[in-house]
């Protein structure tokens, strides 16, 4: 386990190291550029990617793996390429319904991520500041998921569970103006303790709200 964690730490350090030694177009060389605080809001469809466990006592069951995903993210975009920030939101994972003793019953499961996010534009791999690759970015996140569930059977029970987990995403960002951008992001959410995974595709609006 220690070996895996060490390997992961090294891999996380690899992109910034690469950025440090990028060609002359890299803004880390010479005069420092501006720092920005960027607020992102996104929404889109999602698909639950793991088996759901419908209780065997339930009959005429029907599972729904499709849902919606909403995200709010605050990111620090420095003058180099290694961005970091915080993310939260709401993703509906899945729901199922059926009958128990002749009565309709249902379960809904959703998650609120609370993640520390790292993001890196792919320009460190190929291309220049204004190229397609500069607009592509990979994002990873780690933190906690608040898994919320609701049982509706002989009354309603709302419960929640905290699960450690991570996120991996890739995005393309199209500039609209100096402070506004539009992005599309493919995301994979993975709360590990509760053995869930969810894929989503989001349209995002990025707003550079503050620079210094």
């Amino acid at each position, binding site marked *: 386990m220690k070996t895996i964690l060490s390997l992961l730490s090294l891999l996380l350090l690899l992109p910034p190291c690469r950025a440090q030694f990028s060609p002359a177009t890299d803004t880390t060389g010479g005069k420092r550029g501006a720092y920005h605080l960027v607020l992102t809001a996104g929404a889109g469809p999602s698909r639950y990617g793991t*088996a759901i*466990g419908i209780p065997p006592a339930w009959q005429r069951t029907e599972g729904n793996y499709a849902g919606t995903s909403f995200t709010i993210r605050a990111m620090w975009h420095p003058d180099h390429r290694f961005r970091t920030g915080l993310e939260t939101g709401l993703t509906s994972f899945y729901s199922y319904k059926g009958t128990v003793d002749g009565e309709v019953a249902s379960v809904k499961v959703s998650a609120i991520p609370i993640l520390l996010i790292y993001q890196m534009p792919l320009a460190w791999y190929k291309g220049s500041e204004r190229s397609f690759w500069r607009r592509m970015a990979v994002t990873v996140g780690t933190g906690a998921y608040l898994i919320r569930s609701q*049982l509706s059977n002989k009354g309603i029970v709302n419960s929640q569970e905290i699960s450690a987990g991570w996120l991996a995403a890739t995005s393309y960002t199209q500039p609209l103006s100096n402070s506004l951008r539009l992005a599309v992001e493919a995301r994979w959410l993975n709360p590990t303790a509760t053995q869930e995974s969810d894929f989503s595709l989001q349209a995002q609006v990025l707003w550079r709200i503050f620079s210094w």
Partner: protein
Amino acid sequence: MTRAFCYALVGLLTSWAVGCRPVYEAPIPYDSSNKPGTGLFRPAIRRSLDGVYAVSGGGGQFGREVSLKWSYVHDGTDTVHAATILTGVDAGFFNLEINQSVDSLRLSGFWRTLVNQGTGQAALTVVRKRRGQLLPYQGPTLAGDTLALRGTFDTGTGSATQPITLTYLRPLNPKPFEVIAHRGGGRTADLLGVSENTLAILRRAARFGATGVEIDVRYTKDSIPVLYHDNRLNQRLVQKNGLSGGISDYTFEQLQNSFRLQYGEQIPTLEQALLTIVDNTDLRFVWIDAKFSGPMNRVQALQQRFNERARQRGRQLQIVIGLPSADAVDAYRALPNKANTPVLCELNPALVRELDASIWAPRWTLGPQTEEVKAMQAEGRRVFVWTLDDLRFLEKFSEQGNLNGILSNYAPAVAYYYYTTH
């Protein structure tokens, strides 16, 4: 291009390293028939077989000495008998059933170790030794011959070909002592084929060498006492269904409808559990661990009802309520009538005396506490320790010989040290 390939490779390898978790699996290689009847194993023969045996063969994986103890499960008029052989190595044990399809005293089943993943099938025949010769045994008189069990086992290959012989040495240690199996008989994590804190594990507890069980009791939202260990409903204990929360968030009906334990069982009520113990098993001690918050009346009523039921049936069974916390002590204090409510206190000796608990049960990590143990026993109380799973300390505590019982997830190891003590 080469660089892109390298990065993709690193990513794939990382995903593989993180994603490939080891699968811990020690399957039980033998489906118990649970067939009632004794075949040729009459009561006198079964009694004659209880004892400590010397081991020859087996390649050392079962140690030099083992102990054999019979247990049974009643179902109405049917009784299923099973022989448990406790090996003392890695909390190992054999579970053997009467093979009624042969015309000799033959036992078939499996062996397991709880500490690692050792398992395999085994078949043994009861014989008598006379001047080195092995002869058929019809028992129970031996006329100077020595009792032995001879047979074969495998190490998971499915072909029981390795020879083993057990030769009778002496009777089991007769000193009163309780071998208390944690969570009703064993943990779900130990892959025993049934979930912890279920009716199924209670029926098997004696097969692991237990003389008693500890069960964990919580209240549902509608105040039904049920068996469940953890604070939360989680995937360690229940099958995935998307739901979470605590037992007390759900009514009993909701739990029955929507939750299954890891091996598919329903969460049982305390009433069902005590009924199973009294009517179906030969266990003689029940430790109800009060993990609930709230009044103790319902648990007390069940304790009294089933203690009385056991007495009426001539069973030597004691049901006690364990007090693990200040909350549980307060709930006990709040009972309007404490008559016929034996309790076990896990807290300090002063509190044990104040509550007049019949048993003091300190955590084993507090050490031997020799003087306190002596003082408690001088006052007529018994002393148990919990939850002792470290085999080295288990051996030390057993050698010390001053305790009245040990609670463990490794009941076979506790039972081995108890029964083989001279």
